[in-house]
Protein backbone atom coordinates (compact mmCIF):
# COMPACT_ATOMS: atom_id res chain seq x y z
CA UNK A 1 0.00 0.00 0.00
CA UNK A 2 1.08 3.61 -0.58
CA UNK A 3 3.29 5.22 2.06
CA UNK A 4 1.81 8.32 3.63
CA UNK A 5 3.45 10.96 5.79
CA UNK A 6 1.75 12.03 9.01
CA UNK A 7 0.64 15.40 7.58
CA UNK A 8 -1.07 13.74 4.60
CA UNK A 9 -2.85 11.28 6.87
CA UNK A 10 -4.09 14.10 9.10
CA UNK A 11 -5.35 16.00 6.04
CA UNK A 12 -7.09 12.93 4.63
CA UNK A 13 -8.82 12.14 7.95
CA UNK A 14 -10.04 15.73 7.97
CA UNK A 15 -11.33 15.43 4.39
CA UNK A 16 -14.29 13.33 5.51
CA UNK A 17 -16.18 15.18 8.25
CA UNK A 18 -19.53 13.72 9.28
CA UNK A 19 -22.70 14.99 7.63
CA UNK A 20 -25.43 16.37 9.91
CA UNK A 21 -26.82 13.54 12.02
CA UNK A 22 -30.38 14.09 10.78
CA UNK A 23 -29.33 13.41 7.19
CA UNK A 24 -27.87 10.05 8.12
CA UNK A 25 -30.92 9.07 10.20
CA UNK A 26 -33.27 10.04 7.36
CA UNK A 27 -31.31 7.88 4.91
CA UNK A 28 -31.29 4.99 7.39
CA UNK A 29 -35.08 5.27 7.76
CA UNK A 30 -35.62 4.87 4.01
CA UNK A 31 -36.49 1.14 3.99
CA UNK A 32 -39.01 1.51 6.82
CA UNK A 33 -40.65 4.60 5.32
CA UNK A 34 -40.84 3.06 1.86
CA UNK A 35 -42.36 -0.13 3.25
CA UNK A 36 -44.97 1.90 5.13
CA UNK A 37 -45.71 3.95 2.04
CA UNK A 38 -46.03 0.80 -0.09
CA UNK A 39 -48.47 -0.60 2.44
CA UNK A 40 -50.50 2.60 2.52
CA UNK A 41 -50.73 2.81 -1.29
CA UNK A 42 -51.87 -0.82 -1.53
CA UNK A 43 -54.51 -0.21 1.16
CA UNK A 44 -55.69 2.95 -0.60
CA UNK A 45 -56.30 0.95 -3.78
CA UNK A 46 -58.93 -1.12 -1.99
CA UNK A 47 -60.24 1.46 0.45
CA UNK A 48 -62.11 4.38 -1.10
CA UNK A 49 -62.31 6.27 2.19
CA UNK A 50 -58.56 6.08 2.74
CA UNK A 51 -57.90 7.18 -0.83
CA UNK A 52 -60.31 10.10 -0.39
CA UNK A 53 -58.44 11.14 2.77
CA UNK A 54 -55.12 10.96 0.97
CA UNK A 55 -56.44 12.97 -1.97
CA UNK A 56 -58.04 15.60 0.29
CA UNK A 57 -55.01 16.21 2.51
CA UNK A 58 -52.06 14.06 1.66
CA UNK A 59 -49.73 15.57 4.22
CA UNK A 60 -52.06 15.01 7.17
CA UNK A 61 -53.11 11.57 5.99
CA UNK A 62 -49.48 10.46 5.75
CA UNK A 63 -48.71 11.86 9.19
CA UNK A 64 -51.75 10.07 10.66
CA UNK A 65 -50.37 6.83 9.19
CA UNK A 66 -47.06 7.39 10.93
CA UNK A 67 -45.18 8.50 7.82
CA UNK A 68 -43.28 11.75 8.18
CA UNK A 69 -44.41 13.83 5.16
CA UNK A 70 -41.07 15.11 3.90
CA UNK A 71 -41.08 16.81 0.48
CA UNK A 72 -39.51 13.71 -1.05
CA UNK A 73 -42.12 11.36 0.43
CA UNK A 74 -44.95 13.72 -0.57
CA UNK A 75 -43.67 13.83 -4.16
CA UNK A 76 -43.43 10.06 -4.35
CA UNK A 77 -46.86 9.55 -2.78
CA UNK A 78 -48.42 12.03 -5.24
CA UNK A 79 -46.80 10.21 -8.14
CA UNK A 80 -47.95 6.79 -6.98
CA UNK A 81 -51.46 7.98 -6.17
CA UNK A 82 -51.53 9.78 -9.53
CA UNK A 83 -52.52 13.05 -7.87
Amino acid at each position, binding site marked *: *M*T*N*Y*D*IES*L*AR*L*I*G*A*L*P*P*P*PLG*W*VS*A*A*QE*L*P*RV*RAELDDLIVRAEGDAQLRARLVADLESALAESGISPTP*RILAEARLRLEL
Partner: protein
Amino acid sequence: MQGSTDLTDKALVARCRSGDDDAWNELVARFSRYVYAICVQGFRFSSEDAEDVFQDVFTKVYQQLGRLRDDAAFRPWIGQLTRRTCVDHLRSSREDAAEQVEPPGVDDRLGELDEALTVREVMATLPESCQEILDRFFARDESYKTIGEALDLPPGTIASRISRCLEKLKAAMEDPDASSRPVDG
Protein backbone atom coordinates in the same frame (compact mmCIF):
# COMPACT_ATOMS: atom_id res chain seq x y z
CA MET B 1 -23.47 -13.95 13.58
CA GLN B 2 -20.90 -11.38 12.39
CA GLY B 3 -21.80 -7.76 13.25
CA SER B 4 -22.50 -5.44 10.32
CA THR B 5 -19.59 -3.15 11.19
CA ASP B 6 -17.07 -5.96 10.61
CA LEU B 7 -18.39 -6.92 7.21
CA THR B 8 -16.66 -6.23 3.91
CA ASP B 9 -18.54 -3.98 1.50
CA LYS B 10 -19.39 -7.04 -0.55
CA ALA B 11 -20.95 -8.92 2.37
CA LEU B 12 -22.70 -5.79 3.61
CA VAL B 13 -24.30 -5.15 0.21
CA ALA B 14 -25.45 -8.77 0.03
CA ARG B 15 -27.12 -8.41 3.43
CA CYS B 16 -28.79 -5.15 2.42
CA ARG B 17 -30.18 -6.84 -0.65
CA SER B 18 -31.72 -9.54 1.54
CA GLY B 19 -33.55 -6.85 3.55
CA ASP B 20 -31.32 -6.71 6.65
CA ASP B 21 -32.09 -3.34 8.30
CA ASP B 22 -28.93 -3.35 10.42
CA ALA B 23 -26.85 -3.86 7.30
CA TRP B 24 -28.59 -0.93 5.60
CA ASN B 25 -27.91 1.28 8.63
CA GLU B 26 -24.25 0.33 8.50
CA LEU B 27 -24.04 0.88 4.74
CA VAL B 28 -25.44 4.40 5.13
CA ALA B 29 -23.13 5.10 8.09
CA ARG B 30 -20.09 3.74 6.23
CA PHE B 31 -20.58 5.83 3.08
CA SER B 32 -22.37 8.91 4.42
CA ARG B 33 -19.18 10.95 4.85
CA TYR B 34 -17.98 10.08 1.35
CA VAL B 35 -21.29 11.07 -0.29
CA TYR B 36 -21.47 14.23 1.80
CA ALA B 37 -17.89 15.22 0.93
CA ILE B 38 -18.47 14.74 -2.79
CA CYS B 39 -21.47 17.09 -2.54
CA VAL B 40 -19.92 19.86 -0.46
CA GLN B 41 -16.24 19.64 -1.38
CA GLY B 42 -16.31 18.18 -4.89
CA PHE B 43 -19.34 20.13 -6.14
CA ARG B 44 -19.37 22.94 -3.56
CA PHE B 45 -23.09 22.63 -2.91
CA SER B 46 -24.85 24.69 -0.28
CA SER B 47 -26.12 22.76 2.71
CA GLU B 48 -29.65 22.74 1.27
CA ASP B 49 -28.59 21.40 -2.14
CA ALA B 50 -26.20 18.93 -0.54
CA GLU B 51 -28.99 17.52 1.62
CA ASP B 52 -31.21 17.06 -1.45
CA VAL B 53 -28.49 15.22 -3.33
CA PHE B 54 -27.47 13.21 -0.26
CA GLN B 55 -31.00 11.85 0.23
CA ASP B 56 -31.39 11.30 -3.51
CA VAL B 57 -28.21 9.24 -3.63
CA PHE B 58 -29.27 6.92 -0.81
CA THR B 59 -32.77 6.58 -2.30
CA LYS B 60 -31.17 5.52 -5.60
CA VAL B 61 -28.81 3.15 -3.79
CA TYR B 62 -31.81 1.54 -2.09
CA GLN B 63 -33.75 1.29 -5.34
CA GLN B 64 -30.88 0.21 -7.59
CA LEU B 65 -28.88 -2.09 -5.33
CA GLY B 66 -30.37 -5.07 -7.14
CA ARG B 67 -28.80 -3.89 -10.40
CA LEU B 68 -25.25 -3.81 -9.04
CA ARG B 69 -23.42 -6.58 -10.87
CA ASP B 70 -20.43 -6.91 -8.57
CA ASP B 71 -21.09 -6.31 -4.86
CA ALA B 72 -17.36 -5.82 -4.27
CA ALA B 73 -17.51 -2.81 -6.61
CA PHE B 74 -19.98 -0.95 -4.41
CA ARG B 75 -17.53 1.80 -3.52
CA PRO B 76 -16.79 3.01 -7.08
CA TRP B 77 -20.46 2.52 -7.89
CA ILE B 78 -21.70 4.83 -5.13
CA GLY B 79 -18.97 7.32 -6.02
CA GLN B 80 -20.14 7.45 -9.64
CA LEU B 81 -23.79 7.49 -8.61
CA THR B 82 -23.14 10.48 -6.35
CA ARG B 83 -21.22 12.29 -9.05
CA ARG B 84 -23.99 11.73 -11.61
CA THR B 85 -26.62 12.85 -9.12
CA CYS B 86 -24.63 16.02 -8.41
CA VAL B 87 -24.35 16.74 -12.15
CA ASP B 88 -28.09 16.12 -12.66
CA HIS B 89 -28.83 18.47 -9.78
CA LEU B 90 -26.66 21.19 -11.31
CA ARG B 91 -28.19 20.67 -14.76
CA SER B 92 -31.72 20.92 -13.38
CA SER B 93 -30.95 24.43 -12.17
CA ARG B 94 -29.41 25.67 -15.43
CA GLU B 95 -31.03 26.67 -18.70
CA ASP B 96 -28.25 25.45 -20.96
CA ALA B 97 -28.05 21.71 -20.32
CA ALA B 98 -25.02 21.34 -22.60
CA GLU B 99 -23.00 23.78 -20.53
CA GLN B 100 -20.03 22.38 -18.60
CA VAL B 101 -21.52 21.94 -15.16
CA GLU B 102 -18.82 20.25 -13.09
CA PRO B 103 -16.66 22.69 -11.13
CA PRO B 104 -13.00 22.91 -12.15
CA GLY B 105 -10.69 20.48 -10.39
CA VAL B 106 -13.47 18.05 -9.50
CA ASP B 107 -11.52 15.01 -10.71
CA ASP B 108 -8.59 15.80 -8.45
CA ARG B 109 -10.87 16.51 -5.50
CA LEU B 110 -12.83 13.27 -5.95
CA GLY B 111 -9.55 11.38 -6.27
CA GLU B 112 -8.47 12.82 -2.94
CA LEU B 113 -11.79 11.89 -1.31
CA ASP B 114 -11.38 8.36 -2.60
CA GLU B 115 -7.96 8.27 -0.96
CA ALA B 116 -9.49 9.66 2.23
CA LEU B 117 -12.01 6.82 2.22
CA THR B 118 -9.17 4.31 1.96
CA VAL B 119 -7.52 5.93 4.99
CA ARG B 120 -10.86 5.68 6.83
CA GLU B 121 -11.09 1.98 6.04
CA VAL B 122 -7.64 1.37 7.48
CA MET B 123 -8.41 3.64 10.44
CA ALA B 124 -11.38 1.39 11.21
CA THR B 125 -8.90 -1.41 11.99
CA LEU B 126 -7.25 0.66 14.77
CA PRO B 127 -8.40 0.43 18.39
CA GLU B 128 -11.65 2.31 19.05
CA SER B 129 -9.80 4.82 21.25
CA CYS B 130 -7.53 5.81 18.35
CA GLN B 131 -10.37 6.03 15.84
CA GLU B 132 -12.30 8.31 18.16
CA ILE B 133 -9.53 10.70 19.06
CA LEU B 134 -8.32 11.05 15.46
CA ASP B 135 -11.86 11.59 14.21
CA ARG B 136 -12.70 14.13 16.88
CA PHE B 137 -9.56 16.16 16.32
CA PHE B 138 -9.12 16.07 12.55
CA ALA B 139 -12.59 15.45 11.13
CA ARG B 140 -14.86 17.03 13.76
CA ASP B 141 -12.39 19.83 14.48
CA GLU B 142 -12.83 19.53 18.26
CA SER B 143 -10.44 21.27 20.65
CA TYR B 144 -8.20 19.44 23.14
CA LYS B 145 -10.51 20.73 25.88
CA THR B 146 -13.66 19.30 24.26
CA ILE B 147 -11.95 16.00 23.52
CA GLY B 148 -10.57 15.82 27.06
CA GLU B 149 -14.02 16.35 28.55
CA ALA B 150 -15.71 13.90 26.20
CA LEU B 151 -13.16 11.13 26.65
CA ASP B 152 -12.31 11.93 30.27
CA LEU B 153 -8.64 12.52 29.45
CA PRO B 154 -6.30 15.19 30.84
CA PRO B 155 -5.86 17.78 28.02
CA GLY B 156 -2.10 17.49 28.40
CA THR B 157 -2.11 13.89 27.20
CA ILE B 158 -4.22 14.44 24.10
CA ALA B 159 -1.52 15.76 21.77
CA SER B 160 0.77 12.84 22.51
CA ARG B 161 -2.08 10.37 22.12
CA ILE B 162 -3.05 11.86 18.74
CA SER B 163 0.57 11.65 17.66
CA ARG B 164 0.84 7.98 18.69
CA CYS B 165 -2.42 7.13 16.96
CA LEU B 166 -1.26 8.85 13.76
CA GLU B 167 1.95 6.82 13.88
CA LYS B 168 -0.12 3.71 14.35
CA LEU B 169 -2.31 4.64 11.39
CA LYS B 170 0.78 5.26 9.27
CA ALA B 171 2.09 1.83 10.20
CA ALA B 172 -1.29 0.26 9.45
CA MET B 173 -1.35 1.92 6.02
CA GLU B 174 2.03 0.36 5.30
CA ASP B 175 1.37 -2.96 7.06
CA PRO B 176 -2.24 -3.80 7.93
CA ASP B 177 -1.12 -6.32 10.64
CA ALA B 178 0.46 -3.50 12.68
CA SER B 179 -2.94 -2.15 13.76
CA SER B 180 -3.56 -5.07 16.11
CA ARG B 181 -0.88 -3.85 18.55
CA PRO B 182 -2.25 -1.86 21.53
CA VAL B 183 -1.73 1.88 22.07
CA ASP B 184 -0.95 3.05 25.61
CA GLY B 185 -1.41 6.32 27.36
